[in-house]
């Protein structure tokens, strides 16, 4: 294990930025999101929940797929995907829940057929996670068996008042470590263990620590789908996309064309199953009410996705939706209502 003094973090960032594009939580316009690091940027590593999750790095909110160049009646197709020969990048400060979310996304985008747009970005990334030390009341990653005190990743780091502690887990991690080695010194194991213990003590007091998910099983699918509680749960839903867009695991997108002076850009952008036109097809709309859309989102997270992915839920308990839903609806309420007997 290595460590670096907190005051010297800027040197670390600077060093990483020499060879990598460095994405790190930065405060801009009052909000903390992952942005490319640069000298003078306001890094906010401790921020528990960036507004947008790190998925934006691999699965950007909007991404060009290809271009059609038209000249008169001729049409040429140009590949515009992110080029692997560009600088690889580092995602720095990823929290345990968000790292788990990347695993959820990988199962979607890297399974056959592979989404090569996602893949090329994913492969070029080295992920440096950061253990949580100060969870807040909306956190419930432990309900999904995630250990916020020891996240995985290519490199795992811990931060306390004095140092950042650094531990490489993978080859990519080793390579990054080698690149910044000159700034690191050895040691810190006890500090890390102490932090883990104290954080775990806090984690036990999380109000959502013991959510019961036992009813979300494939065999209960029909029963859950038909549950009358969906009506009242979804009643206040505005049908906005806040929950899906701040969610680290939501993966739906739309493909659209944009007309330029030269032709057309075909791009994809995040879409939300909460939107009424999400299911709009030539024949009509298969989900006509907000209840159906609302139900779809949570059934997918808690039933459909796990039934196809060995029981892995596509919720990681980051709590962003708990904080951000305009009308205070969220997945916790759904779990408590439908998840199982022990939720009362």
């Amino acid at each position, binding site marked *: 294990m290595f460590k670096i003094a907190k005051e010297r973090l800027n040197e670390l960032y600077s060093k990483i930025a020499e060879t990598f594009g460095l994405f790190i939580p930065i405060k*801009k*316009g*009052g*909000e903390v*999101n992952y942005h490319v690091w640069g000298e003078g940027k306001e890094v906010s590593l401790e921020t*528990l929940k960036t*507004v*947008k999750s790190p998925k934006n790095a691999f699965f950007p*909110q*909007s991404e*060009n797929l290809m271009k059609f160049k038209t000249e008169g009646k001729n049409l040429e197709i140009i590949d515009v995907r992110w080029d692997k020969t560009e600088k690889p990048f580092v995602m720095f400060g990823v929290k345990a829940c968000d790292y788990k979310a990347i695993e959820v996304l990988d199962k979607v985008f890297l399974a056959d057929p592979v989404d090569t747009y996602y893949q090329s970005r994913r492969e070029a990334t080295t992920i440096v996670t950061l253990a949580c030390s*100060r*969870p*807040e*009341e909306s956190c419930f990653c432990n309900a999904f068996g995630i250990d916020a005190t020891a996240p995985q990743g290519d490199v795992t780091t811990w931060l306390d008042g004095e140092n950042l502690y650094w531990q490489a887990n993978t080859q990519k991690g080793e390579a990054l470590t080698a690149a910044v080695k000159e700034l690191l010194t050895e040691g810190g194991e006890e500090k890390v263990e102490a932090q883990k213990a104290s954080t775990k003590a*806090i984690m036990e*007091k999380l*109000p*959502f620590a013991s959510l019961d998910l036992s009813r979300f099983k494939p065999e209960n699918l029909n029963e859950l789908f038909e549950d009358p509680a969906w009506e*009242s749960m979804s*009643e*206040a839903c*505005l*049908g*906005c*996309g*806040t929950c*899906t*867009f*701040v969610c680290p695991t939501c993966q739906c997108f*739309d493909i*659209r064309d*944009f007309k330029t002076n030269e032709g057309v*850009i075909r*791009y994809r*952008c*995040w*879409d*939300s199953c909460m*939107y*009424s*036109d999400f299911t709009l097809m030539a024949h009509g709309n298969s989900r006509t009410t907000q209840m159906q859309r609302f139900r779809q989102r949570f059934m997918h997270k808690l039933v459909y996705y796990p039934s196809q992915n060995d029981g892995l839920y596509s919720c990681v308990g980051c709590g962003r939706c*708990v*904080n*951000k839903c*305009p*009308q*205070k*609806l*969220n997945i*916790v*309420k759904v779990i*408590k209502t439908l998840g199982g007997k022990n939720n009362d």
Partner: protein
Amino acid sequence: MRDVELKMKERASELLKSGEVARVIGWKKGEFYHDPQPASFESVEELNAFVYNGFCGANLSKYLIQMSKKEGKTAIFLKPCDSYSFNQLVKEHRIVRENIHVIAIECQGKLDIEKIKAKGFDFVTEVEENGDEIAVASLYGNGAVQKDEVLLGKCETCKGKVHQVKDEEIILHEMQAGKKNRFEEVEKLEAMTEDERFAFWREQLQKCIRCNACRNVCPACSCLKCVFDNPASGIAAKANDDKFEEQLFHIIRAFHVSGRCTDCGECSRVCPQNIPLHLLNRKFIKDIDGLYGEYQAGETAEGKTPLTSYTEGDAEPNDVVNGEVR
């Protein structure tokens, strides 16, 4: 506030019991004290979860678009600022006045949990409202904050404590208007140079994730199908691919609600990226006031809006600078 909540609950119970109304729209207990959610109550039993406290900031009026179409009468609790939206919706024939029983309720300003958390209470376990002081219990320490400092942005500039519409009222204590001038922030921006203003809005709007929360919560944005969802409009788009899209979205949205926006402040309250969206709408309001005479949307449920009326001597567009005639 506790007494107000009890009275509201009692009244809701009476209305439901007597069959006068089929449902009551109010707030229901959330997971914490600070996250009550809008809800409709159809039986006295359901009222057990009824709550009304400092975190009931949501403007419930827009729910009436759907609710007032249901069988039977709907009762709704409206804070003074929500009553403007209600009138505007009636004016635009979006809700049927006769099907609704409006209960005007007391509001002493609503709280912003994010502001409380920013004071260092980031694991809030309990909140207690004691007049101007808010006691906060958190895992990382307890303390108190001044209410003034943690009000929702929209409540800081509260435009008054008078209900514009009501069938009955539950007001037990005197209410106070906001302390800040609502155009102060707009004026601050107006005083900047073009470049500074541009930089300000670029930074703010770049945060936009096009989640549409502002639009979907907005009582003025009551279109069945928004132009941004309609491919035929030529401006439909979902997510940003370029900064322009956010500008376009917010400019057109502000224009569409101009003269109709009651300044209820919901757009800024719900924005996950905390973009001060109300400053867009307020600019229109300020300009309308300055150019065509003071106008408050939702003051009445009748009449034309400033953009659907004119006078022969109106200002020329080229002469208007910063909302004033040059």
